[in-house]
């Protein structure tokens, strides 16, 4: 009995001490942003002094499809939902993988916001970057955000 309890305690301790799975990528922080801890599973989040939010997460590439398929799916969904497409461009990230980013316009409170969505596909993962902020403020950070996205490097083969 005591042995079983000790075993359970040891297992619990083992799982607690195990490092959590590292994100499948590394990234350089956007210039002028502060790193934040996400409570809801986002892998990486940062914020500018004015409140421009930047975050990265991953999703399962299922069904397994390429960047063109997913970018079309994303674009169609957002257009159907009434977002106004403002920009659409390809972006090559650090290891040469192709990504696509969209900038969407939507009203929020009494202002207009830009909502940036970037996706790139690597194996089983879709890496998704998001950023949002008031249009005028966002313009000041667009370059820093895109540079940060370009610095994404995959840790897994």
């Amino acid at each position, binding site marked *: 009995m005591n042995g079983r309890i000790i075993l359970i305690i040891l297992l619990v301790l083992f799982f607690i001490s195990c490092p959590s799975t590292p994100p499948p990528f590394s990234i350089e922080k956007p210039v002028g942003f502060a790193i934040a801890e996400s409570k809801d599973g986002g892998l990486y989040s940062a*914020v500018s002094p004015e409140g421009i939010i930047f975050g990265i997460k991953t999703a399962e590439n299922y069904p397994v499809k390429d960047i063109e398929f997913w970018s079309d799916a994303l674009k169609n*969904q957002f257009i159907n939902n*009434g*977002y106004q497409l403002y920009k659409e461009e390809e972006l090559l990230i650090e290891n040469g993988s192709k990504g696509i980013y969209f900038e969407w316009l939507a009203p929020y409170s009494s202002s207009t*916001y830009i909502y940036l*969505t970037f996706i790139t596909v690597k194996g089983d993962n879709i890496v998704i970057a998001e950023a949002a902020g008031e249009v005028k403020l966002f313009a000041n950070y667009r370059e820093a955000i895109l540079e940060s996205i370009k610095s994404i490097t995959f840790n897994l083969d």
Partner: protein
Amino acid sequence: MKIIKVTIILLFICSSLMFGQQNISYLTYQLDIFLLVLDPDQAAIDIIMFAEESGGYFLHSSEQGINVRIPINNLSSFTAFLRETGEEVEDYSPTAIDIREEIIYLESGINSRQEILEKNIELIEETNMEDTLAIEAEIIRLLNEIEQLKGRLRRIDIERGYALVNIRFSFLSRSIPNNIESMFSWINSLGLYSFLEKGNTYEW
């Protein structure tokens, strides 16, 4: 009668000579701007007001954009005004065009016609009635042509002092996006409003 006509024509020539002696700068400016605005009607009103207050004037307006002329000296303040008025200046393309060739062409056209005009005036004193009528018709034709050339020169004069500003509007609907679900769950996890809400859950 002939003396009066000759006097009028001489006065016309003198005024033309004075016209041609003004100081000339040889550049005209044009700005093509693509401006993101929330309300294109209000933006057009604001731009017209600014143009008129700064000594310029309004040319044309439609839902897609507006054309105004702004005094060249006020272009920098106009640009600053646009950045305040619009959500974002998406494109700003200034152009300067050298109009030296056109001015020289118009001035030489005026001068050559004036020389012919003067010769016709000299002849008119020595001709009979029939020739006088023919010369008068020729003089009227020359005066018309000179007036047209002077008109084009005046237009260029205006263009030298005022930049032509062509503004195209990009504007937004104020409706909030719908929430139609995608077949792909990760796409459903995206959206401006959910992302902003999530921003409030981070520990900064």
